[in-house]
């Protein structure tokens, strides 16, 4: 589905990605692992056609993602319907006056008929348990609700590919479980690419992982293989070396430990 060949990308002041080559098949569940600043968010943006590779190529179903390609309206609409990105910060993503408008935004841009939009929204609000929030202002919701609305706002187009940037960051255990359940549910039906540094959820959300470090792809493999490679995790900043010794055994700790439900250290 996605093929990346020697992709590099620079921000004005620093390199973000450097010679990344990888491919992602349809209906795979992928995790992009890396510490903050490793380039995983940038990679998501490149995959979503929000930024374009400076060198190297990214293809989606054989079509090269370039700004020229997105000028073509038919391609742009098709791509935007099929590939959806959930931003890490819901305050950025939720910019409409009500939850209803939020869900209507994408289909409206894609010129769907209004009656169909209404029907779809009603349906999705039900299935995602958001019906009671339809008239509310998104910025007045709790973090967990915001994240759910953000997810719903992209699921409305029933995308084939779902890109998620730190979907569980700053969520309480209940919302976090909802998110994980939802991603489990996508198994075998959608391509899900999740950028995260939350190792606890890895095995549930991904079948295969890529590890990024300082803009380079440094490892790839199944979740259990990578989690077993302590040296790799330490070198890429996914766990801290000095916080390893706990009574009764080794526990990987990392910046999001305090968000995890108790007993979630299942990989240790």
């Amino acid at each position, binding site marked *: 589905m996605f093929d990346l060949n020697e992709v590099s990308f620079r921000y004005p002041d620093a390199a973000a990605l450097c010679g990344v080559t990888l491919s992602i098949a349809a209906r795979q569940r992928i995790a992009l692992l890396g510490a903050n600043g490793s380039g995983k968010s940038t990679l998501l943006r490149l995959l979503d056609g929000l930024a374009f590779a400076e060198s190297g190529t990214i293809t989606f179903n054989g079509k090269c993602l370039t700004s020229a390609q997105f000028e073509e*309206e038919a391609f*742009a609409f098709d791509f935007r*319907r099929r590939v*959806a990105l959930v931003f890490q910060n819901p305050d*950025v993503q939720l*910019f409409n006056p009500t939850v209803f408008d939020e869900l209507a935004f994408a289909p*409206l841009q894609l010129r769907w008929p209004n009656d169909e939009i*209404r029907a779809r929204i009603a349906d999705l609000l039900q299935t995602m348990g958001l019906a009671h929030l339809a008239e509310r*202002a998104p910025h007045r919701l709790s973090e967990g609700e915001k994240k759910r609305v953000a997810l719903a706002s992209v699921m409305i187009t029933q995308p084939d590919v779902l890109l998620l940037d730190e979907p569980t960051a700053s969520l309480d255990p209940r919302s976090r479980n909802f998110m994980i359940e939802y991603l489990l549910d996508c198994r075998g039906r959608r391509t899900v690419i999740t950028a995260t540094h939350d190792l606890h959820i890895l095995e549930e959300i991904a079948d295969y992982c890529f590890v990024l470090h300082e803009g380079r792809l440094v490892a790839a493999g199944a979740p259990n293989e990578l989690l077993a490679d302590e040296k790799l995790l330490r070198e890429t900043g996914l766990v801290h070396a000095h916080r390893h010794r706990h009574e009764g055994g080794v526990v990987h700790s990392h910046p999001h430990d305090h968000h995890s439900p108790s007993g979630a250290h299942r990989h240790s």
Partner: protein
Amino acid sequence: MSSRSFLERSLASFVAIIEQAIVAEEFARRDGFLQKLDPRVKLGGFLALIFVSVATHNLAIVAATFFLATALAFFSEISLSALALRAWLPVALFTGVIAMPALFLTPGPALIRAPMITANGLRAATFLIGRAETAATCALILVLSTKWPHLLHALRALRLPRAVIVVLGMTQRYIFFLLRAAQDLFAARRSRIIAPLDGRTRRHLAAANAGVLISRSLDLSGEVYAAMQARGFRGEIHTLEALRMRPNDWLALTLFLAVAVTLFWVGGH
């Protein structure tokens, strides 16, 4: 001076006031007369009343418009104390201060001799205060009785470009974001400063915080743009036209306009 900088204090109270002003749908949720109407009818109706109050040359008409608006509020379960607090009092204070000198300064036959008040002065001051009060009351009732998203839809009926409506909606939304950010900035700096601040430091603080905010605003607009693009935004704005006029709405609109025209006509010139 308390340890909380007064910049921060004013911001904190502002956040509260703004939330109250913009988001509190306290009155818009009630089941009153105005709440049942299509927002476009209310918008058209109240704009007509505001126009009458500003355009008429007859004080009685200004007063009639004022009482009509107040009656509408009363039948829409909008408390008069809310109107008093948010429109009548501030306008009376502000415009009152400005209108007062007109009593003495406007040339014309004297009404009272001791401090010389002229009839024309009294009339001028009454006009100024009456119009300002009436227009402010109408505008406030419109806003209080209408949910913000509905008001946005209604503005579309004024033939404002879609982009303007969308920008308005997003502005309202990001005002909160930036206000919170500003509050956090002041709080963060306060936690690092123990001594009371002199005016100069506080000015520096305000400028620095405004600087941080401006740079955050630019980042934020870039991010929001990406989020819009990601969902298919290509520069053209499309919105759902959600409103439908019912017979009652047409009736109310006719009544509103008939009253406005009558008032204007009765007032004469």
